[in-house]
């Protein structure tokens, strides 16, 4: 009579991690970046509270709330497209759709950065700079930090898009990119509400 004995502790050959290592690494990075933004937000609140009643842009400057609202919609749309892209990439039939959606994500992100840069140039022309006062310093510090994250994410996304076109992109790498972009998209409405409606 045959008896079967399972070897304890033996792993099946070719076992994959439950979560891709790239995603876990990106989550750890996001954890540190969230703490960075929490520190900026906390400092912004304290400074604004100490200057209660005197918190306004210098001179006749008015923050472009409406234009930035449109920008926010673009960024939120890019979050949707990157999520759809990663989902489509899971199946071989959805690869071309994933390519298109990733390209749309990059385009929307680039438009966001372009519009923000244009608004910044106008603000500087009207006299609001990092040296014009504490309002300008905190504004450019917080919004600029987010902008740097967006630009870095766009560069990486463009690189991954090239790899996708070559057929050399792993699903884990795309999911890691997706996670980081969703973080960038998710942080922006908080900063927008905090800074533009202060």
């Amino acid at each position, binding site marked *: *009579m*045959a*008896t*079967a*004995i*399972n*070897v304890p502790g*033996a*792993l*099946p050959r070719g076992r994959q991690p*439950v*979560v891709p290592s790239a995603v*876990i690494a990106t*989550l750890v990075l996001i*954890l540190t970046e*969230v*703490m960075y933004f*929490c*520190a900026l*937000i*906390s*400092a912004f*609140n*304290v400074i*604004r*509270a*100490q200057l*209660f009643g005197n918190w306004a842009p210098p001179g006749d400057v008015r923050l472009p709330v409406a234009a930035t609202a449109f920008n926010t919609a673009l960024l939120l749309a890019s979050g949707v497209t990157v999520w759809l892209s990663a989902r489509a990439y899971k199946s071989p039939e959805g690869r071309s759709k994933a390519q298109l959606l990733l390209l749309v994500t990059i385009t929307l992100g680039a438009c966001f950065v372009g519009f923000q840069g244009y608004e910044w140039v106008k603000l500087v022309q009207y006299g609001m700079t990092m040296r014009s006062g504490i309002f300008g310093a905190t504004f450019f510090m917080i919004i600029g930090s987010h902008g740097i994250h967006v630009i870095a994410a766009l560069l990486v996304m463009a690189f991954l898009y090239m790899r996708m076109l070559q057929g050399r992109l792993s699903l884990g790498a795309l999911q890691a990119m997706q996670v980081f972009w969703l973080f960038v998209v998710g942080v922006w409405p908080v900063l927008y509400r905090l800074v533009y409606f202060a």
Partner: protein
Amino acid sequence: MLTSLFYTIFGATHASACAVCGIGEDPAAGAILAGTGLLSAAPIIMIGSGVYYLYRQSKKHRPDDLHASAPSLTAESSPHK
């Protein structure tokens, strides 16, 4: 623990004299305390959420598939026939 409880109940006035928390301006003190709360809670919430997420993901790939795909030794395949 009793010492902590004692200071929590009777030491509130001393905490208000803190140069940071009891800064004198109520809005600033509130902002500092809110910021402290945010910076204290954020890592706990994020790490806890991450651990829970990994736990849920690992439950989907439970040891059931470990036993199913682990190499097995049968009497027929034993070298000691």
